[in-house]
């Protein structure tokens, strides 16, 4: 049922324009990778803090607030480059288990980050909240790791 939709997506001009070029896919992919590095830093510095690692002598609230524009900015670039990459090989993605794993983890990761994790970084970690915050940090790392790892795996299938 979804396959005709994916075939239609791939037939759109943007995907076809990328397919017709030798350079566009690798260039867009490189920007996707550059944003991955920034996203990694913006997520890690906060999740590590939630886990009681890294900048543990500074407030969670402060680190999260400072990291947030870089997190959002990197996500915007990831999506803005990821969508054209997808459009250029939508049918391949349809048949790729890694792609569906990535999209599932991505949806969960986005919802988790802007609800549960956002709330967990609004309160300062004191004794009775620290364990809960550590769980949030670990879950966030696990979700985003799954997104990145299955994303890389799309290329191998």
């Amino acid at each position, binding site marked *: 049922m979804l396959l005709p939709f994916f075939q239609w997506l791939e037939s759109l001009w943007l995907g076809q324009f990328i397919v017709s070029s030798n350079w566009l896919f690798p260039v867009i992919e490189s920007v996707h990778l*550059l944003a991955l*590095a920034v996203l990694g830093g913006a*997520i890690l510095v906060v999740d590590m803090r939630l886990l009681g690692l890294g*900048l543990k002598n500074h407030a969670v609230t*402060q680190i999260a607030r400072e990291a947030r524009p*870089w997190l959002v900015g990197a996500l915007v670039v990831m999506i803005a480059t990821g969508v054209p990459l997808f459009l250029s090989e939508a049918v391949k993605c349809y048949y790729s288990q890694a792609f569906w794993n990535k999209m599932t983890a991505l949806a969960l990761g986005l919802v988790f980050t802007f609800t549960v994790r956002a709330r967990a970084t609004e309160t300062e970690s004191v004794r009775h909240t620290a364990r809960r915050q550590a769980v949030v940090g670990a879950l966030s790392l696990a979700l985003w790791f799954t997104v*990145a790892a299955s994303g890389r795996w799309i290329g*191998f299938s």
Partner: protein
Amino acid sequence: MSLLAFCEWLAATGGSIALHESMYMYPLVESTHVLALTVFVGLAVILDLRLLGLVLRTVPVTDITDRLLPWTKGGFAVMVVTGILLFYAIPVRTYQSIWFRAKVVMLILAGINVWVFNNRVFLRVDEWKLDITTPKGARRAGLFSLILWGGIIVAGRFIAYNWFDCDIQPQSAFVNWAAGCVVPPPTP
């Protein structure tokens, strides 16, 4: 023994062939290389942006170098080990890749950048660790680092593409020179 001969010898070793032909090991090593990027470059970017006064402005620079840099170094170690394995799996083609060569040049420049930072402006870090606008030398180091690691990521990704491979001829004289291609002289 020339470097090319060394790479040819390396490519003929059992381990290189096994890794090159493995179904899962090579993708696994490459995935680790890419994912460790988020730890290494991601955390390096945090320090660079702090030096540029763009993130964690109220955190002293020394807190970042004391508490985040060990993780950055750990990520770097993973990058180096997996990177060497990736080279080991495909030595000759990688050695003759202009992207790989550009990457090595930028890696050396990035190393020099760290060395200069550590031996100049960072020696006086206690004087400016609280500043949002850090000294010029620190800002320059942060900016160079961002540019160089960005370039290293792009060049590294492009190694996978064969546009300028030696076995795809004719290439321009510049590409053949930069990639160290062994091209037979044109037959008249």
